[in-house]
């Protein structure tokens, strides 16, 4: 459930190794809550604070999600560093998420 983003986004200004993530969720729906918890656990273990995560509720801001080309939720997009990548689903497949983030299972 991983594939390169069809619309690569530009990294933030300046050189940085901070991983920039955007997670699209549907309110308090079960898969969305699970995706948040799974992602937070992965970030805590592998990114140790070196990341920026924005959570967007498509029930509150559907137009933004559509503008970003989101098709389903939960949906995680890695914006930076390049290459951009996307994972859909509740992020319970940790290996798949790490692959999308460009991390190795036991790497940091």
């Amino acid at each position, binding site marked *: 459930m991983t594939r390169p983003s069809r619309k690569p986004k530009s990294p933030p200004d300046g050189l940085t190794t901070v991983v920039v993530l955007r997670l699209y969720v549907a309110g308090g729906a079960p898969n969305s809550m699970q995706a948040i918890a799974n992602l937070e656990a992965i970030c805590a273990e592998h990114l140790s604070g070196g990341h920026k995560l924005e959570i967007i509720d498509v029930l509150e801001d559907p137009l933004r999600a559509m503008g970003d080309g989101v098709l*389903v939720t939960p949906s995680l997009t890695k914006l930076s560093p390049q290459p951009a990548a996307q994972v859909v*689903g509740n992020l319970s497949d940790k290996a798949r998420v790490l692959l999308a983030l460009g991390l190795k299972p036991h790497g940091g």
Partner: protein
Amino acid sequence: MAANGHLPSPRATPGPMVLRRVINQLPEGGPERQAIEAGEIDAVLDHANSNVILFPAARRAIRVAHSSPSPPAPHAAPDTPVANSVLAALTSAEYRELLPGLEPVALRFGEVLHEPGAPIRYVYFPIDCTICLLSPTHHQRMVETGLVGFEGMVGISLALGVDVSSVRAQVQCAGAALRMPAARFQPAFRSCLSLQRELYRYAYVKLAQSRQAVACVASHRIEQRLACWILMTSDRSRSSVVALQQDHLSTILGVRRASVTLASLALRSRKLISARRGETTILNRAGLESASCACYKRVEALHST
């Protein structure tokens, strides 16, 4: 995350046809389709109509979370997202610890979750479904000895150190639940004091309910027991409409089908309930409570102990 609760579309809830159409527009064999098949998706975005379409289980979970009549426990996070009383009683940090092991599932009517004598593979935290617990009697017959809804957990014996079910757990009203593999539940239970407290309290309630049920069967008329059962099912599914098949009721109450029909007719003639196509609707709740035996209020009072 911003507060949720209202859907962006001013239109009526899209039906299954619309959902199917939007899913069909997703790339065939793509990650979105795979995630949908795996049950990991809550909503699809309909770009053509600028609409967000929730899957039924997600819609139910959000609706239930916002219409839950019971206030959260004082120590629970105010934004506790789970409409299951056991999980809602946990602190936000405890709940997040459990979340990676919890999987949302949609349970179908009649689905068997546990069998007597078989190992428990999953525990279930119902959200808006009800599960009846059936005990074997003779000649492969079963009689209902318990009912579990959003207030509890299916598989309580695991919390008491027994990994085999003593009952058949069968879905009575279809709906959403969160489930956790037994192998993950056991260490989580050992390490979470709030979960231990809640489940020990719940085990006490189930024990007291079982005692009350024995007294009920021995003392009360079928009409009273039927009224009691309808009320309890309605409470646990948070709906005044409950699925009721007379064959199934006969099993649940442990009486002949003709007796169930007579009891149902008596309640219908007093305009306390209406019944059609396997569904029973409560028309007069106060009247139905009066028609029920005292066991209903005693059992429900146990939940506030």
